[in-house]
């Protein structure tokens, strides 16, 4: 399955905007994860603007597709996608990490139906997703799919493999897991810190259908998700291993653990935004809203 040109351009634009809004959110909120937000921008773009059936005006509509961001620190990208999809006013994102604003880690109370669960600790979201998938089976809802996005480092957690085991035990082929295999964890490269290879074999051995794609290639992502939904429904859960670049789109952040969690100061944010627009062939555009002189008494960084 290939995207037509119009869709391709639309999704490319969305992925670009997800990155822009992520930077704005993180800078303004003075906390957040650029690396893991950027690596899944294309994945979220395809999901929310092509593949998933969602109802932003009736967000809890029963036949919606569900998405659980297990790597809940990737919240900026997800909040951005939801804002762009019309779940709430875009201005909301400027209350990222503020009291009564959008929580630093995705929280169910922040965007009902948009954020389906509460997170923060890694390795738990696939269990929640499996529970939802079981629940959909109980309700005889054959249409909805449950998408779960995992980090690669996150798969160090044993809870992930417990969930993987139970999902195949229960034949949850309405469950589609996407691993954002961006090669880096919080503090370095994954093979250095705690290797997960042979990764394809692990999922196979846990009874899953496995596909591998370039996670920044919209066509490949779309093709794999389409196949997972429509072609491979054989009683096994599906995983798409999406090979990505952590921090993709801003040179200093790419594969660089220093930008795993780090809020740029306003000047750096402005430069990053300009670089992004050039990378993605857009007109150079910095940060408009931010007052560069502003300097709240709080942490920069967030390590």
């Amino acid at each position, binding site marked *: 399955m290939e995207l037509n040109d119009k869709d391709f351009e639309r999704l490319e634009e969305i992925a670009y905007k997800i990155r822009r809004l992520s930077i704005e959110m993180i800078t303004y909120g003075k906390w957040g994860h650029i690396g893991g937000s950027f690596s899944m921008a294309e994945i979220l773009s395809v999901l929310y603007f092509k593949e998933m059936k969602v109802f932003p005006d009736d967000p809890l509509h029963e036949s919606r597709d569900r998405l659980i961001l297990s790597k809940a620190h990737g919240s900026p990208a997800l909040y951005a996608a939801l804002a762009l999809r019309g779940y709430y006013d875009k201005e909301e994102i400027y209350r990222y990490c503020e009291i009564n604003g959008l929580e630093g880690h995705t*929280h169910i109370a922040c965007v009902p139906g948009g954020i389906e669960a509460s997170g923060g*600790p890694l390795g*738990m979201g696939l269990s929640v997703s499996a529970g939802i998938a*079981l*629940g959909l089976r109980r309700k005889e809802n054959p249409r909805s799919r449950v998408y779960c996005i995992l980090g690669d480092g996150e798969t160090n957690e044993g*809870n992930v493999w417990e969930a993987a085991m139970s999902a195949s035990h229960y034949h949850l082929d309405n469950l589609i897991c996407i691993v954002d295999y961006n090669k880096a964890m919080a503090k370095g490269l994954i093979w250095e810190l705690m290797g997960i290879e042979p990764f394809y074999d692990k999922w196979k051995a846990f009874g899953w259908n496995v596909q591998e794609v370039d996670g920044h290639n919209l066509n490949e992502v779309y093709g794999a998700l389409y196949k997972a939904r429509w072609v491979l429904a054989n009683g096994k859960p599906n995983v798409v291993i999406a090979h990505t670049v952590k921090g993709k789109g801003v040179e200093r952040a790419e594969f660089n653990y220093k930008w795993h969690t780090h809020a740029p100061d306003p000047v750096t944010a402005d430069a990053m935004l300009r670089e992004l627009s050039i990378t993605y062939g857009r007109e150079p555009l910095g940060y408009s809203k931010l007052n560069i002189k502003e300097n709240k008494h709080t942490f920069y960084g967030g390590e």
Partner: protein
Amino acid sequence: MEENSSIEMRDAFAEALLEIGGNYENMIFLDADLHTSTKASMFKKRYPERFYQFGIAEQNMFGAAAGLAIEGFIPFPSTFAVFASRRALDQISISICYANLNVKIPGSYVGVPTSRAGASHNSIEDIAIMRSMPNIKIADPASNNDLKAIMRAAMETPGPVYFRVARYAAKELFGSDHKFTWGKGKVLKEGLDVTLLGTGIMTAFCLEASELLARDGFSAEVVHLGSIKPVDRQCIIDSVSKTGCAITAENASVIGGFGDAVLEAVSDECPVYLKKIGVRDRFIESGGMDELFTLHQMQPVDIANAAIAVINSKKK
């Protein structure tokens, strides 16, 4: 303990599950390879399609419970209390409590009377651990009818609930029409010299202690506080400000648990001498039930002796 009901509390648990299962179609049961021990096997037999086996993987079971609750079901993810509180705590805390989901957690095999499995299986920290988490309600039943009332109340209460189930045939203190209300205690016996505040199966021990005390000429008030969180502050304060001293008794560690919930209320409004009966900061070894109650100084006579000590302190 001769007069105990012949029905173990875990059997009463099974009966209540059947009743609730009949009344709530969206109630489901999740197990981690222990259903014949917890006696949930009876529920499985009656409602096989509402019973989910998760194997020996507690973290996943509690995570999946969150997912099922999100979809509108009322899951009972069930395992021994030690594993609920110690093995899956991040899942219970963040996936369930922080998200404030409608999950009911039975903790089985609590406290001292838990076969002879020893330290790893006798749950003494679960009250302290669960109490530390926001949003969750906690109850410890005195008897089978109390357990059933608690389980009914849990179904009527949205949000996470943790309740304890002893592997034990406890003395029945209540009628079958007994009602349970969150945050409400019950004066079982009035008295003037000291208040014995019990939760769980220790309430019956408090009643026995009050008889021992009566023989020595002391009049003890006995209060049952099945609802540990929220706890009935008013009831505690009313009784304690009358008697002027108190004992708490719980089938758990005295650190951070029920006794400390009581202390908070007391110290806030009417400070009195108070001693806590329970496991005193040590792991429980393998051994016989009665032997262990004695070793850990949790018998009625220990409650009575502690009561005399606080009565004497107050008189000074």
